[in-house]
């Protein structure tokens, strides 16, 4: 729709956005229906993340689901993969978050991975503490005294959850894994959990946020390791031997990237020919 009522310029430099979007829909849709099977290589970063998690059985990890539904497309597969690893290695999992959707999302993914053992293991191997309000103030409060929240997402008092007996402050958590889709949450976690020395931090972020987290990632930096986006989730699924949605989605992601390269090439060809004309 050309609201300026001017004749649309044609040519390689002015392809209608709707054509680009239709082609994208096609390129992304086809591999979801008919996978191609492009081989996935596990990067050193993802392997390091996996090795940190599986270094020792029985450690306690906190998974902070600080994302809106919009981030779930990338973070969802990551969360699933991490929970499956936690189940394989008997890690104790504390699900928490400072986003109002945290409790709901934690419920969804815990149900997905632990539904068969929910009644026997909830409160013993995993808990859903739900949403802790107050953003950074809430993080400060949680870090200093986890029991200040008094009950979990389902209304169960913490004293009725056996695994919480030994988890009183953030110091009792071995790793806090921040699942984030913007920079606010990891920055606040670094300030309130890592800088005061409570616990160590890992990150599982969307691909958009990952470059901004890079300055903080490293063995002697606040974030010990991190995985990014759907390809990070796919690599984690591969290395942990739990294939899932992420591996299925990487073909579509690859083709979308191919399409953008094609259009960049078209745009530059158009520029080249235009210069030749002038």
């Amino acid at each position, binding site marked *: 729709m050309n609201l300026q009522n001017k004749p649309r310029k044609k040519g390689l430099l002015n392809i209608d956005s709707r054509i680009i979007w239709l082609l994208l829909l096609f390129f992304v849709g086809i591999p979801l229906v008919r996978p191609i099977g492009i081989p996935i290589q596990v990067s050193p970063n993802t392997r390091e993340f996996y090795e940190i998690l599986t270094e020792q059985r029985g450690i306690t990890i906190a998974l902070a689901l600080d994302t809106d*539904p919009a981030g779930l497309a990338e973070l969802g597969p990551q969360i699933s993969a991490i929970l499956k690893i936690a189940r394989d290695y008997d890690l104790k999992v504390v699900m928490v978050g400072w986003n109002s959707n945290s409790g*709901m999302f934690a419920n969804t993914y815990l149900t997905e991975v632990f539904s068969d053992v929910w009644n026997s293991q909830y409160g013993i191997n995993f808990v859903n503490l739900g949403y802790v309000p107050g953003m950074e103030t809430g993080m400060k409060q949680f870090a200093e005294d986890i029991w200040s929240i008094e009950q979990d997402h389902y209304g169960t008092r913490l004293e009725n959850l056996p695994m919480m007996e030994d988890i009183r402050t953030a110091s009792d958590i071995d790793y806090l894994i921040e699942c984030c889709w913007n920079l606010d949450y990891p920055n606040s976690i670094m300030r309130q959990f890592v800088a005061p020395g409570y616990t160590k931090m890992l990150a599982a972020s969307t691909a958009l946020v990952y470059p901004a987290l890079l300055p903080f990632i490293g063995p002697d930096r606040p974030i010990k390791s991190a995985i990014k986006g759907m390809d990070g989730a796919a690599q984690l699924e591969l290395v942990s031997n739990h294939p899932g949605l992420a591996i299925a989605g990487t073909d579509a992601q690859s083709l979308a990237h191919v399409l*953008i390269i094609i259009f960049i090439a078209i745009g530059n060809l158009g520029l080249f020919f235009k210069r030749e004309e002038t």
Partner: protein
Amino acid sequence: MANLAKNYLASVIVAVIGFLFVFTYYFLAQPLNDWSQTLAQIISLISLFAVLPGAFLMIRRETSILTVRGPNWDRSVITLGSFLVFLIAGLTGLSSPIYLWLYNNVFVILSTAIFSLLAFYIMSAGYRTFRARSWEATVLLVVGLLTILGVVPFGASIWSGFPTITDWISKYPSTGTSRGITIGIALGTAGVIIRTIAGQGRLGRFIKGEE
């Protein structure tokens, strides 16, 4: 006296609480640490109430459009109807089947769909932006192409060097630039917050009621 209280009471509260939180961040000093923890709990509770004005303003606006049959009043019906449905479902409990169904099959799906629009817009923005109009734009184009090829399995299957190059670009030039920008932003943010605690700046003036 009333004017003094009106202008300065809020500023004093902000200054005291701000100082307390900063102090207890760096120092251990009882009972200040206990006080800051209690205040943190209170502030967390207060923040929950921030949801209410948003809901009230939205209801007020939509009902006023509906009452006078203003332009697009049918959209106000949808807005208010959706709000009521979720409100009633929420009252049945966050774990109730109705609420979970609505949450997972309406809210999450719609939010994800809206965010997925970004993919389409990135495509058209990338097509428009990555053109070799100048030397700087050419550098951007080359680096962009290398990064695109390095982040997906497809690129690695063409040549195993692409992920290595992308990793190098991410770790060194990109991280270095990010660090520089982050330092500037952190100083800017800290400057505003320090001045707000001291009762200066636009936020400080707003708290004092001068704006």
